[in-house]
């Protein structure tokens, strides 16, 4: 059931965006694909407004940092079609040093705080966002703390060194 819906969706996206859709896989039945930031708004708009896709609901926006990759920050959108009972995950890899991506607030008002949170923790600048400020951290923090280069604890502490735990 789920697989056939995913196949239909792959077909739809392939017809519309062609080579802009890459990295298609289905971990645990959830269709995941990668696209680029120049078409992300069109992809989201298409998924939202196309009658067959019908992804009316934005579940979540977040980001992941992969320091070893060339495009180091992945912005991840989770969309949900309530009528078809299908979810999909859209990823966009962007450059760590110029982390910009268009905002989705024009499509879903709920994207506002999700994008503020992503900006706060990963420094992703959502272009066109009406109010892109930090949301959970204080303003003078100066860094975007979920990036992998920032350690969780004081690295000078000796009692928490991994080697003492056989790691």
């Amino acid at each position, binding site marked *: 059931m789920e697989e056939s819906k995913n196949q239909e969706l792959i077909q739809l996206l392939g017809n519309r965006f062609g080579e802009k859709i890459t990295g298609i896989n289905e*971990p645990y039945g959830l269709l*995941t694909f990668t696209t680029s930031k120049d078409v992300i708004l069109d992809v989201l708009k298409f998924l939202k407004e196309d009658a067959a896709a019908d992804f009316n609901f934005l579940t979540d926006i977040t980001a992941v940092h992969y320091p070893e990759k060339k495009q180091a920050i992945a912005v991840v959108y989770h969309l949900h079609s*309530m009528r078809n009972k299908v979810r999909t995950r859209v990823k966009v890899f962007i450059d760590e040093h110029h982390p910009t991506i268009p905002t989705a607030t024009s499509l879903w008002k709920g994207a506002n705080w999700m994008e503020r949170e992503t900006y706060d923790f990963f420094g992703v600048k959502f272009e066109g966002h009406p109010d892109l*400020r930090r949301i*959970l951290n204080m303003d*003078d923090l100066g860094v975007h*703390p979920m990036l992998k280069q920032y350690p*969780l604890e004081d690295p000078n502490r000796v009692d928490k060194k991994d080697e003492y735990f056989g790691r």
Partner: protein
Amino acid sequence: MNNQPVYTDNDPQSELVTLNLGPTHPATHGVFQNVLQLDGERIVSGVSTIGYIHRAFEKIAEHRPFYQITPLTDRLNYCSSPINNMGWHMTVEKLLNIQTPKRVDYLRVIVMELSRIADHIICNTIIAQDTGATTTFLYLFQFREHIYEIFEEVCGARLTTNIGRIGGFERDFNDIAFAKINKFLKEFPVALKEFESLLNRNRIFIDRTAGVARVPAETALSYSWTGPLLRATGVDYDVRVSEPYSSYQDFDFEVPVGTSGDIYDRYLVRNEEMWQSVRLIEQALEKLKKEPAGIFHADVPDFYLPAKEEVYNNMEALIYHFKIVMGEIDAPKAEVYHAVEGGNGELGFYLINDGGRTPYRLHFRRPSFINYQMFAHMSEGMLLSDAIINMSSMNIIAGELDA
């Protein structure tokens, strides 16, 4: 500070008053700050500032093995911790492809529905409290205590429960737990009935709540609302039905919906959900009778912590215990999203595992965070006293808001 909106009242002609509602205000039931511009009693505009109890759970989770993340989830929506705990355990089970026995699923349903009742009791009694009806608050709140006594019997903790294990529970429910559940099922409906008869047709209560903070379904969907708030607007979205987990598909229950999305509808939806939860628990107890007794976890020695007596007396159990606690488990390199229906809506866990001892990334989709962003916008044009009950009816839990 950008985060601290300060209105300057330099204009001598201005008749607006700036009010800092929060961060610690007795009427807001949690750490919320809203800077409001008031024209008399009416709110002209507002700005929400959040993050006062932000504890960086997502960062901490990147440095903790799976079992050490369960206590973090306790502290999201601490009014219904068991749902968070089990949501997390089910996410890991999905990652590891663990099938839980039916009996475990039904035991989980009992605990999750009890915590849903506890969550809704808090919200609905506080709406009543904020409209001036203290009686109902004190009367129904004792049942939250009874629910906590059941949790105490099942796992030893009350509020931040850290309940269950990957694959099931740490121990079977004992006879006292079942006796307490049965007692609760006998007493709670009577009290809930009385609670409803005090409020449902109460003229004062209806005047304060009906038609206040109406939200059309389109707006609610655009703001990514889920849970009772979305259902009050008439959208019948419930994760338990749309993507059943923990064998919810075996149960017969209804998803109540409202029509106008106002505070009265939210109250009615939550009340009806409590009735449905009672039904679910009754059905689960009935189904448990048909399941083989004594099974309370899946047979997954690689991930299920062995019993303490075993660990102290048995070499193999000690090794497993050590390996699991230190995160030496081989989990597939994969990413998984799992959602459960929390007290406030869709609680999602987005887990990326890279084969290390800790998650590479763990993101919580927290319904309170997403639901709350409409609050300041909704409050514009509203009376201050209505904004207060609006906030109560949204049941924003600060722990889940800030994570």
